[in-house]
């Protein structure tokens, strides 16, 4: 960065405040997730009774859905930048759909674990750490879905246009983060922990 005096005709550019703020929020979220991940890793194999992680089945289909939603939201971002609002709405809708599939998959997985395997948050340390870590992530997916849906409603009402491209990108950063964190959670819970 130059420290020479600047003059009126020089350009003065600053980073987007929305993106800086969202990246800061994501940094804070990383703090929360790392504590839950640390607890999960520390307690692997320390349950003294009850089911073990062997009862888990890796949710491959869910994972594929969630990760591809990062791609579809990126396509939506590209479309709004070019002002093609119909295409934007379509990709945005598909993103919501993929998110819903993921959350439904988690619900089914939990249903089986609770009623078939008898694993609750109270059962043992595995239950405690599993439901809290996966649940923390699922909470973030749900918050993201609420945000995505609000934007979808405004899009359908015709209130979103090209000038909102930057805001859409800021929001998408959050969704990308939710997807990226799933990679970590998946690795910890279904690969390392099993």
């Amino acid at each position, binding site marked *: 960065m130059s420290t020479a005096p600047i003059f*009126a005709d020089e350009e003065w550019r600053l980073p*987007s405040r929305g993106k800086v703020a969202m990246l800061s929020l994501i940094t804070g979220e990383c703090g929360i997730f790392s504590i839950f991940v640390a607890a999960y890793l*520390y307690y692997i194999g320390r349950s*003294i009774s009850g089911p073990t992680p062997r009862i888990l089945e890796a949710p491959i289909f869910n994972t594929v859905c969630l990760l591809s939603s990062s791609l579809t939201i990126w396509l939506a971002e590209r479309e709004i930048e070019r002002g093609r609002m119909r295409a934007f709405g379509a990709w945005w809708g598909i993103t919501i759909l993929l998110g819903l599939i993921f959350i439904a998959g988690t619900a089914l997985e939990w249903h089986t674990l609770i009623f078939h395997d008898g694993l609750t948050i109270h059962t043992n340390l595995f239950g405690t750490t599993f439901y809290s870590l996966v649940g923390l992530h699922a909470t973030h997916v749900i918050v993201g879905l609420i945000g995505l849906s609000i934007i979808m409603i405004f899009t359908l009402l015709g209130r979103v246009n090209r000038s909102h491209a930057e805001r859409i990108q800021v929001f998408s950063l959050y969704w990308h983060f939710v997807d990226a964190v799933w990679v970590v959670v998946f690795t910890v819970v279904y690969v390392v922990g099993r």
Partner: protein
Amino acid sequence: MADQTVPLGNSLGAAYPSSGTFLEWLHSWVVTVDHKKLGILYIAYGLFFLLVAGAEAMVIRYQLAFPNNHFVSPEAYNQIFTMHGTTMVFLAGMPIIFGLANYMVPLMIGARDMAFPRLNAFSFWLTAFGGLLLYFSFIGGFGLYGMGNAPDAGWFAYAPLTGSAFSPGHSMDYWALALIVAGFGTLGTAINIVATTLSMRCRGMTLTRMPLFVWLMLIVSAMTLLTITPLTAAQVMLLLDRYLGAHFFDAQAGGAPMLWIHFFWIFGHPEVYVLVLPAFAIANEVIPVFSRKAIFGYPAMVAASAGIGFVSFTVWAHHMFTVGMSWVGNTFFVLSTMVVGIFTGIKIFNWIATMWGGSIVFATPMLFCIAFVFQMLLAGLTGIMLSVAPWDWQLHNSYFLIAHFHYVLVGVIVIAIFAAFYYWYPKATGRMLSERLGKWHFWLFVIGFHVTFDTMHFVGILGMPRSIYTYQADRGWNTLNLVISLGAFLQGIAVAIFVWNLIYSYFRGQEAGSDPWDAWTLEWATPSPPPAYNFATEPEVRSRRPLWDLKHPSDPDWKYEA
């Protein structure tokens, strides 16, 4: 009104529109999104809790002034020292610091407001309600039947004492929920300050020209993002344990209370630097102005602050030497802790070098900063002593440790906050604080401080543990404890003078004008108090001391800054 010597456009005129009825005035404060009003709200709120927690400290000191004393009951005593610590850190320290940042950062970088004014207001009210929730614990639940449900497990709330088996009732729920709420407020403000410093700077305010105050607040806010969130996560785990029967910290089901200690100090240690770096930030502004010299070693100051920021995340287990770790763990945390001393040393060197050869003006803000440098040095030295694991095994959780961290929290942070009050009060109110009362405040406080906390080291070396309700008369601690308590009451009197000064000067203080200290940063280019829009025209900056350039057009700084 605009100062003629500082031709930054302020032609739009008066500060605040004159207020109407009391309700209109109140309404304007409740709905405000102005960073200056929110800053004042933060500071007033923090100051209120500083007095509350100070009063709690007085109760503690009266209880310990004599052996076998029963001034308060043991149960109440536990609640009072827990609330004293929790309040000082979360409801006094953090709000005052973030209030200062709120008020000063936009002015110093030539912006008209924070990046997200409404988020700013939201964050303040979250913090405010968090504090109310914490204090509601005194009367909440079955409170009115007795002493209430105030948290009583120490500010660090070690497991398993906080589990529902050992802390029935709702005391720990109040503690966890109140701090989660306040924590989200803190997170919002931290995000806001990062976004403001990076994205709202006026033309020419490059990162290398930002006032050091802004630099340090940027570092503090960035640290806060990773400091407060681990605590929030751990508190969520605690609530899951208490309400849903999870086993995070439940030893009976294989859970590890030690994990809480780790999580708490992963928050707790960086938190100390989140509190102390703003104190450094204040000194970085005050010392040059009253030494009539530019700060010595600007880049070194930035680098050392960033260094402290990074290293502070790798030292948490120096709070855990007595928990028992491997020799590898002990050695790592001893060495990483000592590295902090190097960065702090650089800073102390730079402050002294700034004063060296300057024509020092001994006004009250500068007096506090001189005491600050001296006490920072002593606090740092006992810090290095405690960083040596075998020494720590002897003195951990004794009053030596209490003396060390109060040297930092009171002798460094509170003292620097006092300096900030005397320095910026004229900007925020348009009136000077009384120098005469200020000098009384300074001398009484500093003498009281040393009487209390210097003595506390010795009673610690003699073996007095922290958090005890009372002690036997034959331990040889009687005189020392009485001296400590007398010093504490002296500090109490000094703070009362300070509060009186704040009130008295608001009505009777000397008119300040826009730039009473002949300073160099942009906040002094605005009228006192600044108008809602701060700057009528966006300022343009060419050096680290924009007002120097304006006052000395023939000899501007930017000619020499490489």
